[in-house]
């Protein structure tokens, strides 16, 4: 239970805002809860200032519910829509300069290993496509080359959304946006393939349309990063504001893209990660 991890000092219980009290009494820390339990525990994010129908908001909610050990997790974010939501997230998180997230996460992971040698601390990068594939690609790839034991999660909305709609490396070829009126001339960057070649032990692409699968992939990525090497999860979350569809059409859009073949759910597991996960999941299954 969270109460064994976090205790309010005596005398302050009554004045503590209710959301903190609920995080202590009914939060996910120190408990085996996940996506299937949403609605039964106090979530690590409940409010955010993202647009109505934002699939990134939904993805973030699912990611946070999937963290294997939120109390020992530090999230590193970057500039973009997601950074607006992180101000409300009840997990340690660091906002890095635009594009620096994987460099910051590398240093953080190493420092945490020195500071807490007897504890496992998960460092998870959660950033948008602009921060990951455009502005921060150098830092992202260098962290993979160095085999840093961090998980990189890209929230792929295929656009620089909160600056008015410029094309990003992840926008599909031909995409017309507010600030890309002629349509994008180049194809979407194949970052999963690059991640695999750059040394990631586990690579997956998923969307919030499949919550349970997303949970499994996020957990696998974080657990693999602890023991084997860097991991990468790309979460497709199309933007209703810039791609101009209704807030309630997000999941429909994802499914449509899946049908067209322009978005695919995929998973690559390196042989080393495969052996590790087989052992881990076998042990879990026996429990």
């Amino acid at each position: 239970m969270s109460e064994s991890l976090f205790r309010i000092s005596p005398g302050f219980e009554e004045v503590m805002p209710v959301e903190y009290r609920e995080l202590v009494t009914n939060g996910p820390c120190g408990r085996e809860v996940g996506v299937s339990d949403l609605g039964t525990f106090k979530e690590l994010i409940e409010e955010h200032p993202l647009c109505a129908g934002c699939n990134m908001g939904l993805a973030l909610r699912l990611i946070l519910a999937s963290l294997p050990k939120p109390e020992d997790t530090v999230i590193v974010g970057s500039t973009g829509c997601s950074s607006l939501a992180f101000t409300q997230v009840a997990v340690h998180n660091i906002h890095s300069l635009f594009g620096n997230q994987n460099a910051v996460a590398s240093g953080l992971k190493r420092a945490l290993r020195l500071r807490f040698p007897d504890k496992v601390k998960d460092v998870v990068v959660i950033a948008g496509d602009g921060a990951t594939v455009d502005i921060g690609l150098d830092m992202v790839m260098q962290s993979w080359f160095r085999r840093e034991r961090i998980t990189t999660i890209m929230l792929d909305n295929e656009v620089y959304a909160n600056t008015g709609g410029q094309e990003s490396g992840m926008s599909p070829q031909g995409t017309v946006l507010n600030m890309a009126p002629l349509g994008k001339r180049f194809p979407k960057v194949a970052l999963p393939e690059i991640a695999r070649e750059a040394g990631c032990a586990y690579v997956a692409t998923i969307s919030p349309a499949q919550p349970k699968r997303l949970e499994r992939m996020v957990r696998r990525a974080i657990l693999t990063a602890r023991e084997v090497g860097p991991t990468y999860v790309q979460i497709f979350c199309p933007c209703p504001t810039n791609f101009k569809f209704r807030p309630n059409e997000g999941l429909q859009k994802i499914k449509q893209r899946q049908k067209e073949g322009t978005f695919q759910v995929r998973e690559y597991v390196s042989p080393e990660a495969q052996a590790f996960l087989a052992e881990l999941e076998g042990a879990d299954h026996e429990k």
Partner: protein
Amino acid sequence: MTASEYRVLPGPEGYLPPAAACMGVMLPEPGEALVEGKIVPEEDALQKIAEKLLAARNPVFFPGPLVLWAWREGVAEKAKAVVELVEAAGARIIPMPDYRPKYPMINPAVEINPNHPNLTIWHNRIDVGVFVGVHCHYANVALKIIRGGTDCYTIALCGEMGHEDAMITLRDVDAAKLRRLTEVVKTRAQARPARAAGAHERR
């Protein structure tokens, strides 16, 4: 104005008040304290804090994470001493449970946030605010914002070396020093029974 003449007084001082340290205000040595930018003996500061608390229309304590959460041994004792002081002063508590900026807005009725503490001061019409158990860097940010945008009189009960940007600051504040301050407040309150009895009715 030369640096040595700078006084740390209630604002509003403007959008970007200078850091008191940049204006030459130095932190006190052990056994000393700062009152409005001047170094004084600690005992004088205790008396001044008691005076300000008892004269306030709406004194509020802002305990921070270092004292709100029982994160290590000794914190519970300090928390108890803070609560006793709050009761002696007839004050209220509005907590600062963490430092998340919580964009776009916090609930100023129930919490204070170092990134926009002025919202809580304005919302609750607080005329004397006491910081205790807030990490130094966030206390500095909050105290400067309060001085810049409000007329709240700030007091920092600091466990380390004190805060130049508070109107009064004590340093090395532990449970024993909090209890000593409580004694001073009680003694002064007894000398001014009307304030102590009427404190709650006036709010």
